[in-house]
């Protein structure tokens, strides 16, 4: 009888301890999941902030900016000829800007949507860099799109209105 009572007590205590362990385990699990969702939110906020800041300054980066090649220096001006050249070297820029896609669209004068490649450039109005699809959240900014255009045996500087769209993946 004494032995059985003792066994019962040890069993009770073991169950109790398992219960305590399970309780602490669940609390820890809850804390970890709460912390990880908080961290995900922070990562999302930072990515959004980065994309918003990037869209406002990407047109000034040397890979995109008009610089001095179109007679006068202007802010938010994208050199389309340079962007087409960049399209060929884009694999080197993987992860460079920390965004999933960069798209440039001509919005004025408007025309049917044609994706640009070297064979149809400049008779097109949409350049996709980094990826062929726009997945994720996008932020955009209006820019001037400038390029050289042949007139007879000479050339002229031609600028149109466009939009720079940056897409980033939410975590």
């Amino acid at each position, binding site marked *: 009888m004494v032995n059985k009572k003792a066994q019962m007590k040890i069993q009770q205590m073991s169950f109790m301890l398992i219960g305590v362990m399970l309780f602490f385990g669940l609390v820890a699990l809850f804390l970890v999941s709460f912390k990880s969702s908080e961290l995900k939110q922070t990562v999302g906020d930072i990515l959004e902030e*980065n994309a918003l800041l990037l869209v406002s300054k990407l047109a000034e980066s040397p*890979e995109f900016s008009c610089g001095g090649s179109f007679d006068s220096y202007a802010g938010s001006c994208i050199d389309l000829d340079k962007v087409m050249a960049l399209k060929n070297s884009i694999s080197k820029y993987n992860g460079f800007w920390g965004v999933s896609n960069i798209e440039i669209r001509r919005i004025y004068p408007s025309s049917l949507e044609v994706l640009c490649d070297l064979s149809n450039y400049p008779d097109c109005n949409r350049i996709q860099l980094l990826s062929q699809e726009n997945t994720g959240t996008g932020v955009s900014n209006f820019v001037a799109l400038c390029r*050289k*255009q*042949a007139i007879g045996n000479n050339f002229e500087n031609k600028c149109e209105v466009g939009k720079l769209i940056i897409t980033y993946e939410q975590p």
Partner: protein
Amino acid sequence: MNKKGFLQISFQWLFAIIVGAIILFLAIYAVSKFSSTNEATSGTKINAQLSALLNPLESSFETSKITPLNLGTETRIYPLCDSDGGFGIQSIKTSQKSFNKWSTPGIGSNVKNRYLFLENPVQGKNFYVFSKPFEFPFKITDLMYIISENDNYCFKNAPSNIKEEIIQLKPKSIFIEDCPDNSIKVCFNMGVCDINVNTNSNYVQKNNTIMYFEEDSLMYATIFSPKQYYECQLNRLISREKILIDIYIEKADIISNQKCYSSIKNELIELKNLLNNFRDSDDLSSIYSKIISINNKNKNSKCRLW
């Protein structure tokens, strides 16, 4: 019977004590791990936020600007540079002081498109960040310099263009006259100071090391960063320049279809070959003459590439 009873109670107690101790140990271990992870997470968050904050300092125009960076608490910023692979990597780690103890720096925020120049580490509550475009011969990027409010720099005998720039920038940590006693003395072509700048032979002598530069943007970089870090960043800049040269060569082909013929394509190929042999800042002077010649040709061309 008594002995048995005594044994029975003592076993229960023993069992409870052992398991209790295990639970206590696990709880203490979890709490300490949790707090150190929390510290690292918060450090990593600051690194990422700081990295995003430095984004808008890039500009299209050839003017430098100064931006105050207030981090609220005493912070150490550790720069890291890796020049391997494509564009290389710029990373920054931060450590903050709380209860008189420096926190774990956290995981560095790696970026490929930033070029920061600062001491390792730079420490303070408030920092001043200013940027200058690096053109070699076309714009490669904006170089960013971070200085702490705790470090005062005294520029002695600075050339007029540097003086004008500092007067225009009004940085609170750089003085050209009435320097505070504890300031770091930066002498231009004179005497022996903490940092000696020779603008005739384009080198900076600092902590028994010599760093070479071309252009003012690189001169500031040598003043505000240690040699090993400067050389690494310079290699990253040259790597980006080589990729940009490929883009300009391709652009020359694209615009030739529009009757815009650039005369510098072959010179760009020669420049790229020169850059392929680049090792450290000592090689800058041999490249610079080519840079000047290409820039002049492009400037005077009807069909400019940049």
